[in-house]
Structures are given as structure tokens and as C-alpha cells.
């Protein structure tokens, strides 16, 4: 139960960061916090005996997807920095 509460708290903290931060790096970091919380819950369920190899497999997949998402996010950030935009409010167009 305590691990469940911890995981849900981490997801909520990450969500608060995504909603309130204006800087792109801070938003990406908050998304990583959410991912960490959710994968911790998967691992905790696996440790409790609920299909342990599958739980670890899910967590590994979440880890890989999170790394890919961070790479794409950082690439977008670098592209936006070249255009002089680093704040989420300044990104108003979806165009190359």
C-alpha cells in the first residue's frame, strides 16, 4: 500500500511539474518523474508475485520508451533553441 501511494504521489508530482513549468527542459524532467512513478508501480506489482518476469519486462519497455521520448524531446528543444524559443508559451506553431 505504501509503494502504491508513493508511485501515485510521484505521478501527481510529475503532472504538477508538467502543468506549471514553462521551460521545456523542466517539462521533460517532470515527464521523466511521471514515468519513474508508473514503472515503480509495475515493479512493485511484479515483486508482489504478480507475474514477476512480465512486470520487469514492462518496466524495461517503459525505460526504453522513456529514453526514446527524452531523445526526441531534447532534439526538439535544440531545434527550438536555434529559433530562439525556450519557453512553452512561445511555441505557437507546428511547422518545420
Amino acid at each position, binding site marked *: 500500500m505504501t509503494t502504491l501511494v508513493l508511485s*501515485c504521489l510521484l*505521478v501527481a508530482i510529475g503532472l504538477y*511539474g508538467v*502543468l506549471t513549468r514553462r*521551460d521545456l527542459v523542466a517539462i521533460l524532467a517532470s515527464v521523466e518523474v511521471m514515468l519513474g512513478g508508473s514503472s515503480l508501480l509495475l515493479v*512493485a506489482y511484479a515483486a508482489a508475485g504478480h507475474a514477476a518476469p512480465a512486470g520487469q519486462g514492462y518496466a524495461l519497455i517503459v*525505460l*526504453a520508451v522513456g529514453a*526514446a521520448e527524452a531523445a526526441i524531446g531534447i532534439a*526538439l528543444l535544440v531545434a527550438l533553441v536555434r529559433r530562439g524559443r525556450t519557453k512553452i508559451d512561445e511555441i505557437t506553431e507546428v511547422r518545420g
Partner: protein
Amino acid sequence: MTTTIVWWLLAALTLAGAVAVITVREMTRLILALGVFLLGIAGLYAYFGFGLLAVAEIFVYVGGVLVLFLLAITVMGRDAEGRAIARRFDPAAATVSAGLAFVLVMALRPSPPASLPVSGVSVERTAAALLGPWLPHFEIVGVLLLVALAAALAIVGGGEDR
């Protein structure tokens, strides 16, 4: 008793890192806070007996993703050094986040995970799973990473603005 203390220490470290990520004012300290959070998560993975996952978390996230973030603030240049990040308390966002946490706890409460380690999974069993019934998922993730790498290069390597 000892395992409970260890769990609480790791949980406190993880929570402290997560709170620091959303509250610190400077970019470099935000990255350090994220590193603390990720180390706490890796510690919790090891606590539950998943050593391979803990090491993979440290290699991939702390060693890779964190360095990517540092690269990002380096690319930003002088603007990122010691740059203050606007910080203001948003009651609406706090309400949404607290509501999400409450809904998740209530929805998952009937089958709570144990807070004490029951059993870990050996590396052999993990390898057998990843290269057995989980092979399609493993391969798809590999393709996803390759696509992400190519996409990142395509996004950053655009020559129009050079």
C-alpha cells in the same frame, strides 16, 4: 525492521528528488535533482529484487538521459547557466495532480502491491522471457529506439537555420 527503514530512506530520497525537480529555480540544480530522483528509483528497483532493472535504470537514465539533459542546457548556452525558472504556485494544477493521485490510489487499492520484497527475478529468467514470449516486444522496442535516433538526427540536423 531494517528492510522497512531502507524502504523509507529510498522513498524519502525519491520524493525529495521529485519535489526538487518541480520547485528548484536553476537549470543545473534541476538536472541534479532529476539525478537524485532516478537514483532513488534505481534503489527501489534493487530493493524489490530487480537488480538488472536497477542497473539498466542507472546506465540508461542516469548515464544517458541525464547527460542528454546536460547537453541540452549546454546547447542553450549562457542563457541556461544559472537561469531562473519561473516558479509560482498554481492551485488549479495542484488540485488536478492531487485528484489524479487520489483516483489512482482508489482505483488500484483493491490489489495493493507489497511494500516488502517478496521475490526478485533472476537475470536468467528475465533473459528467457525477453528472448522467448517477449521477443516481439523486445524487437519492437529496438525498432522504436532506432526510429527515435533517426528522428532526433533529422530534427537537429536540419540545415535551413545553419
